[in-house]
């Protein structure tokens, strides 16, 4: 499921609700979740709030394509993506990506793929409102490095 939300959401509550409603009991052995939360600082400045703009329609289409790609590459049972738009304040979750699979290799790799693809390509733009009352568009995302070598 893909949800674009103008309202604050609690990711753990959303996961509880979604997992209860989805008919996948007994099948999944692995769930991997990423939650991006608004911090009160960025690039050395105190941030009071943020406005998240998106391209309605393209956002949903693009996220759906990303999840389709992930399903082709990994054995995924289900996924949930929730993304905030509009005005966001520190400590509020911005994005939730969850993937359910039989095995952790699929759940972990697919979740990572989805959040990285979302950050690279999904049409969202952040504008930060600083404590100095200035505003600025965010021009880059931080790196999603990967140092872990995983095999077993």
């Amino acid at each position, binding site marked *: 499921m893909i949800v674009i939300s103008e309202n604050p959401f609690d990711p753990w509550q959303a996961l509880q609700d979604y997992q209860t409603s989805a008919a996948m009991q007994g099948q999944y052995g692995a769930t991997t979740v990423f939650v*991006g939360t608004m911090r009160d600082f960025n690039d050395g400045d105190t941030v009071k709030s943020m406005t998240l*703009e998106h*391209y309605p329609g393209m956002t949903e289409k693009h996220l759906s394509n990303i999840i389709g790609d992930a399903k082709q590459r990994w054995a995924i049972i289900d996924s949930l993506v929730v993304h905030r738009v509009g005005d966001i304040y520190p400590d509020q979750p911005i994005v939730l990506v969850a993937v359910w699979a039989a095995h952790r290799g699929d759940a972990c790799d697919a979740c990572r793929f989805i959040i990285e693809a979302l950050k690279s*390509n999904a*049409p*969202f733009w952040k504008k930060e409102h600083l404590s100095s009352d200035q505003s600025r568009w965010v*021009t880059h995302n931080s790196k999603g490095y990967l140092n872990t070598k995983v095999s077993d």
Partner: protein
Amino acid sequence: MSITLHYFASLKESLGRASDSVDYLPNLTVLDVWALANQDQPLPNLILAAVNMDYVPLTSLVEDGDTVAFFPPVTGG
């Protein structure tokens, strides 16, 4: 018929408008559509383009009735 243009985020702010419309002509590229709507003002660096909500290269041809969007690099998530 015509082509619809949408602008987003910092590009929308610097242009001072969210959308435009230009008349359709045969063999227009995405970059031509930009130039028609913006009096030959060059497309700023790094700006991305989508036609009908799919990413396209700036040299891609546009069909009558298409929606063309221009926007800066994305920063969601």
